[in-house]
């Protein structure tokens, strides 16, 4: 009998031994479920929203976004002030004296030069390496470095000494050619190739945050095989990472949890409203909601369970039950969270659906021939317009998505960029669509090849595609079928132009229309449609030359109109919403702004006696530092 029990005893011992290796930390003041697992804390490597969120706790750029201003103004961060030259091509930042790293050493302008050099160089492997291409000399420097690396790879002798010599040469070339300089510890001078109105906005963006030079230098080396400067990733471990933001990293157990404590060296620490922040790792969408409902989590930043639609419907029912009060509060100018806070407490009010800085659309392949060499009917703008006019966007949002998504006919999400108004977009009209299709040589859809709508297997893309295929079939008389592929295979096909129609998404990075419009520029690396229009490229070039910001935005609106009313290289379908879960009576400081970036130093657990205990609210945009006042408040785009 004892022998029979042996496996059981063994297994139980193993199970207990494994448990001892675990251990959860005590609850933090503010616990949030991030959108996904943080993939990196290295500013150069960042690519996902969840990375930027964690980074905003740890680091601060020259500026910070004022997330409660409608125009998302950059306000002083490490830079206490800045001046812009008359030709708008030179920015001189004055760094504050009390800006400190978490090890109490001062944050200097040299740290920024070092960090930006890492970002610009191809060595770092960052998706945002091209972000600073508006800075003088960057494009030429990157090309020069790439040629240098290629020559090294082709050479017969490759050794540590030669690779190190090349690196020295690279540093010299950067200093000589690139317009980023630190004349002293507290002054940073940036020279731009041309006026770039959104440059200041970029200085709040995570990849442009400074890095602690001394720490990085201990973790960087030159690979003698490739001559690339490479970084040992362990520099972002707790205890090693030196940061300059409102919090410091105290614990990071991958796919378990992250923990941040308020930094005692942060210059604006008095304004930080919570002592600690934790991000437990909860991957499953249903479990995230359950974690919120059990009280283990204060904020769930991306609600994705299969009953997402029902959650939102309950919120709508709550508002419907208080309709007169909601209307009164809205008329009084309260933001959506403040309205919920003013209503009686109800769990249904914990759901918040805010429009976000992303658009869902369908790419039309604009190349003359398809991937298999056959003629491409979508190369004709009349065909594209016909197909874009006949998508029932309202039905997609109402019947499939059900999470508060807004049907849209434009590319740039309405209300997301201060001072910019999108054109109305193409009017849906089945009769005009049929006429245009006939003019293109396909009367009643006759002779049109069978359409393949390429989507990836995640989420509800296939359902949407089936609805769109049905619309095209019934309204235009064409046959359309849905091709579902695994996400990576799907992306390869899209990037390689092997599709007729494919689903697509774009989220903006900075507060300027070009963050969306550049996508359709001829030759852009993300122009998956293969679209090329000299008229469109010329409009973008004209906007670059425009000296007056208002005139520039008007030109960009014309460029967007060309896309969404005439050329239609894609069919916009809906604007994303970000669905959050938090109790507005308990949590303050979560911004409903479409840009989605949050300033988590503003987050406050209300009534806990820590921090201001006053929830901030949205207000009209204002300028920070010595920035010139922004354009007057904008009409919020066009409601589709």
């Amino acid at each position: 009998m004892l022998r029979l029990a042996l496996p059981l005893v063994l297994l139980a011992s193993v199970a207990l031994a494994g448990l001892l290796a675990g251990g959860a930390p005590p609850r933090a003041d503010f616990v949030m479920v991030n959108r996904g697992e943080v993939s990196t804390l290295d500013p150069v490597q960042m690519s996902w929203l969840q990375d930027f969120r964690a980074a905003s706790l740890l680091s601060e750029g020259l500026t910070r976004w004022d997330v409660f201003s409608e125009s998302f103004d950059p306000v002083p961060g490490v830079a206490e002030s800045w001046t812009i030259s008359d030709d708008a091509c030179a920015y001189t930042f004055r760094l504050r004296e009390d800006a400190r790293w978490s090890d109490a050493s001062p944050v200097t302008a040299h740290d920024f030069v070092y960090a930006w050099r890492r970002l610009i160089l191809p060595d770092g492997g960052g998706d945002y390496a091209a972000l600073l291409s508006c800075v003088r000399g960057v494009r030429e420097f990157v090309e020069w470095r790439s040629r240098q690396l290629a020559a090294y790879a082709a050479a017969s002798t490759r050794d540590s000494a030669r690779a190190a010599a090349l690196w020295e040469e690279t540093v010299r070339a950067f200093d000589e050619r690139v317009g980023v300089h630190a004349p002293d510890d507290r002054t940073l001078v940036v020279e731009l190739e041309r006026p770039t109105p959104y440059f200041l906005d970029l200085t709040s963006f995570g990849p442009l945050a400074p890095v602690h030079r001394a720490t990085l230098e201990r973790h960087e080396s030159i690979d003698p095989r490739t001559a690339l400067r490479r970084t040992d990733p362990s520099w972002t471990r707790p205890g090693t990472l030196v940061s300059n933001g409102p919090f410091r990293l105290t614990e990071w157990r991958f796919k378990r949890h992250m923990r941040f404590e308020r930094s005692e060296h942060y210059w604006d620490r008095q304004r930080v409203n919570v002592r600690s922040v934790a991000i437990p790792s909860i991957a499953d969408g249903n479990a995230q909601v359950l974690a919120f409902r059990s009280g283990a989590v204060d904020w769930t930043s991306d609600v994705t369970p299969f009953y997402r639609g029902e959650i939102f419907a309950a919120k709508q029912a709550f508002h419907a039950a208080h309709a007169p009060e909601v209307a009164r509060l809205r008329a009084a100018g309260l933001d959506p969270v403040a309205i919920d806070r003013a209503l009686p407490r109800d769990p249904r009010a914990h759901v918040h659906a805010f429009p976000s800085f992303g658009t869902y659309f369908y790419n039309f392949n604009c190349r003359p021939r398809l991937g298999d060499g056959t003629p491409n009917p979508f190369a004709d703008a009349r065909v594209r317009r016909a197909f874009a006019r006949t998508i029932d966007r309202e039905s997609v949002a109402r019947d499939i998505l059900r999470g508060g998504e807004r049907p849209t006919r434009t590319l740039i999400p309405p209300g997301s960029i201060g001072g910019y108004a999108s054109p109305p977009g193409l009017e849906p009209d089945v009769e005009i669509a049929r006429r245009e299709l006939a003019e293109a040589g396909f009367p009643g859809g006759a002779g049109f090849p069978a359409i393949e709508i390429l989507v990836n297997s995640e989420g509800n893309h296939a359902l949407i595609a089936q609805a769109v295929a049905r619309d095209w079939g019934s309204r235009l008389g064409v046959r359309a079928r849905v091709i579902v592929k695994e996400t990576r295979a799907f992306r390869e096909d899209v990037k390689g132009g092997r599709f007729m129609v494919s689903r697509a998404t774009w989220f903006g990075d900075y507060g300027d229309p070009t963050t969306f419009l550049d996508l359709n520029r001829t030759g852009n690396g993300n122009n998956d449609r293969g679209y090329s229009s000299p008229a469109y490229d010329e409009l973008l070039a004209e906007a670059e030359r425009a000296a007056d910001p208002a005139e520039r935005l008007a030109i960009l609106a014309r460029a967007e109109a060309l896309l969404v009313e005439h050329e239609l290289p894609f069919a916009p379908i809906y604007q994303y919403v970000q669905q959050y879960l938090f109790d507005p009576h308990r949590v303050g400081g979560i911004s409903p702004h479409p840009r989605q970036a949050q300033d988590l130093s503003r987050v406050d657990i209300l009534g806990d006696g820590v921090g201001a205990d006053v929830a901030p609210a949205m207000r009209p945009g204002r300028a920070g530092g010595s920035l010139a006042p922004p354009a007057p408040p904008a009409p919020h785009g066009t409601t589709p």
Partner: protein
Amino acid sequence: MIALIARRLLQLPLILGAVLLLTLALAWGVPGNPLERAERRPPAEVEAAMRAQYRLDSFWSFAWSYTLRASGVRYAIDARRGEPMDGRDVFDLGPSLQYRDQRVADIIVDALPVSVSLGAAAIALALVIGVGAGVAGAVRPGGVLDALTLSLALVGISLPTFVVGTALLALFAIVFGWAPVGGWGSLRSMLLPAATLSLPYAAYIARLTRVGMIEALRADYVRTARAKGLPERTVIFRHALRNALVPTVSYLGPACAGAMTGSFVVETVFSVPGMGQHFVSAVQNKDLFLLMGVVLVYAVALVLLNLAADVLVRVVDPRVS
């Protein structure tokens, strides 16, 4: 027994080499750019630098470089050359291409004890439930208790773990508040995932035990024991059960391997930071380094667990040679 253990251990490097090549060939053939992480594509010069860094331009170059690093040969060569070395680089499994702040070896060191622990708890629980239910059903085959345990076993095998897991989570974590929703590190956090993971195994063990027990209870030696006037309890637990459990013990090896390596769904539902999550995300992301590392560990685990099961069978049943 020692010869068996030695033989299996000697086979291990060959098995690992074959697994490495096969996995790499399959992963390489899967469409998708391993360097792409979001909708946007990195600039061309960045992608070129990354390909050079990770030797992603050629299958054979990557395979050769990876084998040298993962096997420790590269470390030995570099150490001989007197290059500055980090002790963690002896078996260098590379970085994760998706989670670039993480080294694959660190991920595995962190996640493996969790999966092993969860799997062991699930199998222990499955043994207790399965053997108990199997014996109870076999004592009176065709009776009410037998029908009940067989039905429950059928349900246990049929119900997907994500349904069971979510239901248990909603009931015990939300309604009763007895267990946390996620996390790891306490007995309470282990109970629900272990129970969910154990159900299909418990059901299978119950059926194996029942069949073995019915056969054993019909055997001559049991009839003899009963004829001697031994109490039924003694007949069942001392005489019949031992032989009835041999198939169950043989099943333990693959069951342990399955529970410790195949708990992806349970790990996701309960946010358990184990290997299963990494395996699936590595496949989805075409994260070559992480995928190779996890597969190699799984291969080692499978060989060792099957070996342990073979040893156990010999301990339980000395007739097996």
